[in-house]
C-alpha cells in the first residue's frame, strides 16, 4: 500500500512524519476531525530513521535498539543486576579465597545459590558486560536515529505554521489586536530580541527561537558515555594496563618488574595525631589515628645494561615525589600509590670487627650486606671467602644447613678464612649477624664442628653504628593505565552535555496574525513555568495583559 505523505501545503514528507515538516500541520488524523489534543512535539514530529516502510533484517535490529522503551528496559535490568551484586561481598574483593567453598561456608545455602548463579562476580559476568554493550549500542543508535532528522527539521523551519500547529501547543494565546497585522509583528521583534530570542518574520507571521543548542545536550551526553564505555572496554587490552603491588625497602633502589623503572624509597614516615589535635570527646576514646603515610620516592629510568645481569644497570633519575595517600607519584602515566607499610627491625648490613680470641687484637672491620654480600674480603692479614649464604638458616634431619625460605628471617654466612695461624686450606667459619640467633643456633658449637679456625678468631660488633637496620618498608601500588585520558574525556563530554541539556531550554514562539486575531503558540523542552512567564511578560510589553496560568493549554508534560 502506498501512503500519501504529501501535506496540504504541498510539502512531501517522509513516511512516519507526525507533523508536516514545513507547516506543522498534524498528519495521520481523521480527515475533518477536529481534535484539540496537544501535539506530540518530540523531535519536532519528524520521521525517525527507524520508521521505514519495509524494514529489512538490519533495519529490524536498528529499530530494536532505536527504541527508548528498549533503552529503559536495558537500564532497568542493569540497575537490578547491579543491585544483586551488592547482596554479598564480591569475590574480587578478596585476595585469596576459593569462591566455590567460601560462599557456602559463610552464607549457607543462599550463598551457594548466589555463587552458582554467578552473582559472586556479577560485574565481570558475561551477561552484565553484554548489558553494558547493549546499552552502548542503544546509545549510538537511539542518538543517530533522532539527531539527524531533528537537525534537518530545526535548520529549515518554516515561519508561517498551520493554525492547528499553533493552537495545539502547550502554551497558547489567541486574542484580538488592533491595527495592521504586519506592523504588529514588526513591533513584536524588539521585545522578543530583548529576551534573547532570534526573530524571523514572514509577513504577518513570526518565529522567535532561543537556546537551540540545548537540544543537542542529550546527544552530547550519549557521545560522552560512548567514549567512556569504549575507554573502559579497551582498558583491559594487554599493554594498556598494569596493576601490581610491591614492597620497597627504605633506603634501597628496587627494580620494578616488567618496566624500565627503578624506585628508591628514601624515607618512609608514618605520623599519628597528637592529643592536642583531638577534641575532648575523641581523646577519651583512646584511639590512635594516623595522620600521614609518606614515602619519599625517587624514580629512576634504566638507560643502559638493563637486562644484563652481569653489569650494573645505568640509572637516570627522572622524577622525585613524596608519595602520600591521595597524592601518588605520576610520571608520564607511570603511577605509584601509597598502599601499606611495615615497620621492621631487619638488618641491612653489619660491619663486624675481626678479633683475635687469644691476644684480643683487632685486625679490622668489613661490611657485610645481607642482600648482596661481596664474595671475598681482606681483613688485616686474613682473607675471607664467602662460601655459602643462608637467608633463613636451619638444620635438616642430617644436621646439614639449609635455607627454609626466601625471606631473610635468619641470615647466616659461611666463610672460608685463610691467614696466619690457620691451616693451609683455611678454616670454616659460620656467622649469624643477629646476636640472639648466634645463641639460638649455637654459632660457637657449629664452628667447632666445622673445624679449622679452632676458636682463634671471632666477629665482634663493637658499636651501634656497626649495625645498619632497615626500619620500614613501604608497600606501593604500581599502576600504568593508558586508557585514563579517554575515560576523563568521556566524562567531560557527559558533563558538558548534561549542563547544556538541563540548565538551558530550547524555547520557540510562533505568531501569526489573521485579520485582527493574533494566534500565539509556544514550545519549550523543559520548564513550562518559566516559558509561560516569559510569554506573559512579552504579551504585556505588547499591551496585552494575560494571566500566566491561563496560557497553559494542559495536556502532555515532558
Amino acid at each position, binding site marked *: 500500500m502506498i501512503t500519501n505523505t504529501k501535506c496540504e501545503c504541498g510539502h512531501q514528507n517522509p513516511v512516519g512524519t507526525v507533523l508536516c515538516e514545513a507547516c506543522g500541520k498534524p498528519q495521520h488524523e481523521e480527515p475533518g476531525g477536529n481534535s484539540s489534543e496537544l501535539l506530540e512535539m518530540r523531535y519536532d514530529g519528524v520521521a525517525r530513521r527507524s520508521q521505514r516502510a519495509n524494514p529489512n533484517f538490519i533495519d529490524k535490529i536498528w529499530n530494536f535498539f532505536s527504541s527508548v522503551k528498549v533503552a529503559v528496559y536495558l537500564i532497568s535490568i542493569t540497575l537490578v543486576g547491579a543491585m544483586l551484586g551488592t547482596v554479598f561481598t564480591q569475590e574480587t574483593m578478596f585476595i585469596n579465597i576459593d569462591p566455590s567453598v567460601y560462599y557456602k561456608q559463610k552464607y549457607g545455602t543462599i550463598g551457594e545459590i548466589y555463587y552458582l548463579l554467578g552473582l559472586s562476580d556479577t560485574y565481570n559476568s558475561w551477561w552484565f558486560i553484554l548489558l553494558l554493550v547493549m546499552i552502548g549500542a542503544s546509545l549510538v543508535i537511539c542518538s543517530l536515529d533522532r539527531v539527524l532528522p531533528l537537525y534537518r527539521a530545526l535548520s529549515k523551519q518554516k515561519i508561517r505554521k498551520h493554525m492547528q500547529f499553533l493552537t495545539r501547543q502547550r502554551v497558547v494565546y489567541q486574542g484580538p489586536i488592533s491595527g495592521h497585522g504586519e506592523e504588529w509583528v514588526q513591533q513584536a521583534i524588539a521585545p522578543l530580541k530583548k529576551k534573547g530570542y532570534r526573530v524571523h518574520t514572514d509577513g504577518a507571521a513570526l518565529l522567535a527561537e532561543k537556546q537551540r543548542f540545548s537540544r543537542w545536550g542529550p546527544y552530547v551526553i550519549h557521545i560522552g558515555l560512548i567514549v567512556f564505555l569504549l575507554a573502559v572496554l579497551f582498558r583491559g587490552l594487554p599493554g594498556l594496563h598494569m596493576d601490581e603491588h610491591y614492597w620497597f625497602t627504605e633506603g634501597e633502589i628496587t627494580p620494578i618488574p616488567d618496566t624500565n623503572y627503578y624506585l628508591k624509597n628514601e624515607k618512609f614516615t608514618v605520623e599519628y595525631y597528637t592529643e592536642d589535635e583531638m577534641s575532648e570527646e575523641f581523646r577519651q576514646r583512646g584511639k590512635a589515628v594516623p*595522620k600521614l603515610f609518606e614515602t619519599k620516592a625517587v624514580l629512576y629510568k634504566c638507560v643502559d645494561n638493563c637486562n644484563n645481569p652481569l653489569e650494573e644497570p645505568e640509572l637516570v633519575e627522572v622524577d622525585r615525589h613524596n608519595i602520600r595517600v591521595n597524592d601518588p607519584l605520576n610520571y608520564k602515566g607511570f603511577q605509584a600509590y601509597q598502599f601499606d607499610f611495615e615497620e621492621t627491625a631487619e638488618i641491612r648490613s653489619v660491619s663486624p670487627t675481626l678479633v683475635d680470641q687469644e691476644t684480643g687484637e683487632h685486625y679490622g672491620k668489613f661490611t657485610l650486606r645481607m642482600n648482596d654480600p661481596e664474595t671475598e674480603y681482606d681483613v688485616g692479614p686474613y682473607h675471607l671467602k664467602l662460601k655459602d649464604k643462608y637467608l633463613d638458616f636451619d638444620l635438616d634431619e642430617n644436621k646439614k644447613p639449609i635455607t627454609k625460605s626466601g625471606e631473610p628471617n635468619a641470615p647466616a654466612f659461611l666463610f672460608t678464612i685463610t691467614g696466619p695461624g690457620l691451616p693451609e686450606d683455611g678454616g670454616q667459619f659460620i656467622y649469624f649477624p643477629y646476636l640472639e640467633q648466634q645463641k639460638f643456633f649455637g654459632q660457637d658449637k657449629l664452628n667447632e664442628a666445622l673445624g679449622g679456625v679452632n676458636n682463634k678468631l671471632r666477629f665482634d660488633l663493637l658499636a651501634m653504628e656497626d649495625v645498619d637496620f632497615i626500619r620500614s618498608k613501604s608497600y606501593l601500588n604500581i599502576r600504568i593505565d593508558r586508557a585514563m585520558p579517554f575515560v576523563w574525556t568521556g566524562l567531560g563530554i557527559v558533563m558538558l552535555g548534561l549542563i547544556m541539556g538541563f540548565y538551558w531550554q530550547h524555547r520557540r514562539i510562533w505568531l501569526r496574525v489573521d485579520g485582527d486575531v493574533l494566534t500565539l503558540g509556544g514550545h519549550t523542552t523543559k520548564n513550562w513555568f518559566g516559558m509561560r512567564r516569559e510569554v506573559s511578560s512579552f504579551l504585556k510589553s505588547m499591551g496585552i495583559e494575560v494571566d500566566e496560568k491561563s496560557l497553559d493549554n494542559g495536556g502532555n508534560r515532558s
Partner: protein
Amino acid sequence: MNLLDISKQAFVIAFLLYCVAFCFYVVTITGKKWKNHEPQQHERKWGRVSFVTSTLGLITHLVYVITRWAWSGHIPVSNMYEFMSFLSLMIMLAFTILYLIYRKALLGLFATPLAIIIMAYAAVFPSDVQPLIPSLNSIWLYIHVTLAAAGDAFFAVSFAAGLMYLLRTVDFKGTDKSARRQKRWLEITFYSIIIVVGFIVSVFAFRASGYEAVFTPKAAPNETAKVSSAREVYNLPPIVAPHNSQLESADSFLGFSKPLFEVPGWFKGVNAGRKSNTIVWALITGTILYGLLRLILRKPLSEALSPALKGIDADDLDEISYRAIAIGFPVFTLGALVFAMIWAQQAWGRFWGWDPKEVWALITWLFYSVYLHLRLSRGFHGRKASWLAVLGFLVVMFTLVGVNLIIAGLHSYAGTD
C-alpha cells in the same frame, strides 16, 4: 567558649528554627480557611514569615558548618553525624532555591520536616570531631561529598513535591482498584517515615535515661582475651540478643532485664545483634506513634493531610518535582560519580572498583536516568512520575544510609555506630 561549643549551639538553634519554621508553614497553609481572613493576604504574609524563619535556620546551620570547619580544620562531612547534618542543610538550600523560583510556600510544609528528620537522625550518631584519616585528607573530600549531597538534596525536594502531588491527586473516596492501591502505598510511605521518627525518638529517650546493657559472646574460658574486644554495648533495652552471647549486665526497663530473642546465626556482620535490636525498637516505637496519630486523627495519615493541599495546582507540583530532578541530576552526576571517580583514581589508584557505595551511587544515577527517559514518553507525568520520585528518594537514602549500615565496604569509615 571555643568555636566547637559555638558550633554545637548553632546546631541546636538551627534545629529549633527549622521546627518553628515548620509550624509557621503549617499556619500558612491551614490558616487560609480561618474566619475573618483574606486567604491570599494570609498566605502572602505568613508565607513570608515562614520563609524568613527557615532562612534564618539555614544561616544558623551554615554557622554550625563554618565554626566546626574552622575548629577542626576540615570540612564537616567526614562521618555520619556530619554528613547527615550537611545533607539536611543541603535539602534546605535546595528548597530555598526552588522556593525562590516557584514561590510556593506549600513546598516548605514538606521540605522542612524532611530536613528536620534527617538532622535529628544525624544527632543519633556520635558528634565528636574525629581527626581526618589520611585517605580522607584530600581536596576531593570537599568537592565530592558536598556536591553529592547537593544532588541528593534536590532529589529529596523532588520527593517532597512528588509526595504532595500524590496527596493532592489521589482520590481518597475512590473505591476502584487503582485508587485503593494508591491509598495503601501512600499510607505505607507515611508509616515508613513514622518508623524513622520512632527510631530517633527511642534512641533519644533511652540516651537521656542513660540506659546500657552489655553482652559478651559465649566462649571457652581460655579465649577470654578475645572476648573483651567483642563486647556489644546496647543503649536500647535488649529485645534481640546477639547470636551466641550471654548478658553481662543490663539496666532494668519496665521490669524486663532479659532479651526475648536471639539473632539467628545467619545474620552476620559487625554488631548484628545491636542493629537488629535497634530496628525492632524503631518498629515498635514507630508503630505506637503511628497508632496514636491514627487514634487522634481517626483516619489514615495521608487522608488527614490531603485537605491542606486543596486548591494547589497539581501541575505545578508535578513540574517542581521534575524540575528538582532536572537541576539535581547534573549536580549528582558530577559530585557522586565524576568527582568520585577522580578521587578514587587518586586515592586508590582505580576510578571504579565496584565498591557497594559506588555501585549504589550508580544505581541511583541509573534510576533517575530511567525517570528522565520515561518522562519523554506520553502519559508519563503526574501520578507515575511522582511515584518514581518517591521511590527514587528511597534509593538515595539506601545509598547514603543503608549501604553503610548493612553492607560494609571501603566507605565504611563514614562512622556507622
